[in-house]
């Protein structure tokens, strides 16, 4: 059986059910790298150029792990654009080339090009090309892709129930949904999914918030239509897919009565974050806002301290607001 390695990083969090179903339907065995660990980070940092952002370095670590485990093919898609007239990030567009240039002794890459900015004709052609590797007919390849899309929609529907995409994937694979404890606060949590939902990159941000009694409301939990409406209020359409999601969700959180504050997780050196963060920060007027920047050097304790301070501040403000409503005259 042909073994296809899928790195547990970057767009894994958005598309894994699709890819896994697709390859399994074609009769391949899918090998997923382990969740990011310190070892993954160390290997990635060693292989990637210094200036690359943290998530890219982590991805290099995952690729290395899979290459060492001896898979037959490595799935490293070139994600240019997943919706019309939008991009992801230049680094995703050159990812297979970067991987090939920086890591030696690689198994052959399956570098499918996803570019639907103008037309999805080429994507369908490329899917057929990839399917042929496994000796399947065009009809069965198309059927496998449709099945994958179906599974993806199902998994995304799970994620809207208050789970993170990472948890949704686990539930989709048959695990139990995690218990959600009592909530004191509801915080809007923003960031590129591949940083936010990776335990090591985000340093368990969402887990820590839950421990502090906060419920994390993510961009995935907001209705896409609502995001579009809010994002459209900017003078110019944001041309990064994830950036537009973040701006739209942030503006929605700002006006949503049920949200107590907004947390933004940025990666050091991330191009879109540097401008999107600025735009969001200048437009949030009603809610407390905190921006956390992470890279491979950040210590978890420092982040917990900042989160605790942020949560304390929100609660103190709330108490004060209630106290101020008591009349001094009884």
């Amino acid at each position: 059986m042909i073994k296809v390695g899928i790195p547990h990083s970057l767009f894994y969090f958005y598309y894994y059910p699709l890819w896994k179903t697709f390859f399994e339907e074609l009769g391949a065995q899918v090998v997923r790298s382990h969740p990011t660990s310190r070892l993954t980070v160390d290997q990635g940092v060693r292989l990637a150029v210094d200036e690359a952002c943290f998530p890219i370095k982590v991805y290099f670590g995952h690729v290395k792990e899979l290459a060492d485990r001896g898979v037959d093919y490595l799935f490293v898609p070139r994600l240019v654009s997943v919706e019309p007239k939008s991009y992801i990030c230049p680094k995703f567009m050159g990812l297979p080339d970067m991987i090939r240039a920086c890591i030696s002794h690689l198994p052959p890459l399956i570098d499918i090009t996803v570019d639907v900015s103008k037309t999805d004709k080429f994507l369908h052609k490329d899917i057929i090309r990839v399917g042929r590797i496994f000796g399947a007919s065009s009809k069965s390849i198309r059927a496998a892709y449709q099945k994958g899309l179906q599974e993806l929609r199902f998994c995304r529907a799970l994620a809207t129930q208050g789970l993170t995409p990472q948890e949704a994937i686990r539930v989709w694979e048959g695990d139990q949904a995690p218990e959600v404890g009592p909530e004191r606060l509801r915080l809007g949590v923003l960031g590129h999914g591949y940083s936010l939902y990776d335990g090591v990159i985000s340093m368990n941000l969402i887990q820590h918030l839950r421990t502090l009694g906060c419920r994390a409301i993510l961009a995935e939990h907001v209705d896409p239509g609502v995001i579009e409406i809010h994002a459209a209020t900017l003078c110019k359409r944001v041309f990064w897919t994830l950036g537009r999601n973040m701006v739209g969700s942030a503006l929605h959180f700002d006006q949503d009565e049920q949200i107590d504050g907004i947390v933004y997780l940025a990666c050091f050196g991330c191009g879109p974050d540097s401008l999107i963060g600025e735009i969001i920060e200048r437009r949030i007027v009603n809610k407390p806002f905190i921006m956390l920047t992470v890279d491979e050097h950040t210590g978890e304790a420092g982040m917990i301290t900042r989160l605790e301070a942020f949560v304390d501040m929100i609660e103190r403000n709330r108490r004060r607001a209630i106290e101020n409503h008591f009349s001094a005259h009884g």
Partner: protein
Amino acid sequence: MKITFPHMGNAHIPIKALLSGLKLEVIPPPPITKRTLELGVKYSPEFACLPLKISVGSFIEALEQGADTVLMAGGWGPCRFGYYAQVERDILQDLGYSFRMVVLEAPDFKLSELLNQIKDLAGKVTTMEAVRAALFAWFKLNAVDRLEICLEKVLPRAVHKDEVMKTYHLALQEIDQADSREQVNRALSRMTTYMESFEQHHQPVLRLGLVGEIYTILEPSCNYHIIEQLGRMNVEVKRSVYTSNWVNDHLLGGMAKRTNRRQILASARPYLNYFVGGHGRETVGYAVEFARQRFDGIIQIGPLTCMPEIVAQSVLGQVGEQEGIPVMTMYFDEHSGAAGIQTRLEAFVDMLQRRNRLNQLQIQEDDVHAYVPGC
């Protein structure tokens, strides 16, 4: 209406010619100084790239001088530049300046649309006058480029480098002030002849290819005058970007003069196989091209955190190995110290010189073995 625009190398000379030809009152951005950078760094997002910070500082200084309209270019990504204007407007408005920002968006990079936008801005000129202004600006742009190329050639070979630099700056001023094509031509030919007549030394001159992000390559204050510094070390620099070529390729559809863009993009394969925004593909393509033209080395420059250049940098190591050429990457931000940069450049140039000497020795040795009679 007093209009200003961002600084980019010597592009202010043709842009000024264009805007004044459209009968607009122009306030050219003041030269970039330490204060410009400080203002930009203070008010821009911390992790934004250096060109954004410099242009914010530049705009603030121009607005202080009384400008009320800011002209800026746009784009549709994936490079950050496309969203610059929006962030800059936010920053300047929050600082309390009242101004109008005109963003030239060229949706499909068509000259006609761009011209229409510029004409709307001008208002009171006829189409004929607008076309004439554009042609004169294009003429000046080419003159400036020819002057820059002349400098890159003369400076490494000249004995008295300060004299050359002085003449170059004088020539720029003359082109800037010229009102007609004849004046531009006269200034250009007189000054280039003068520069070429300077005394030359006979030491070996290294040839270096400079590739990378367009703004960093074109704006000396952004790259710590790297071309001048290298020229002073007797290194001749050839750049991947010349403003007139860029305008020709991206705005004029390659119609105004011959272009090698296709060949460059083809050279980028198989190292980089897809468009990555900004100048990533050009960087790799030119690096390969320079290597095949037997240049001595390549320096890649860009602003820190520049996304397309990071992709290019990742594959440049492989390019250097397979094409057999030393490659160095330098990123610039507001913290780069001039002395540190000079040290790195000197070390790189030393290494190239030693490599050349060793290669020559090797060749001589091979020759000796080949031609010893009787062997």
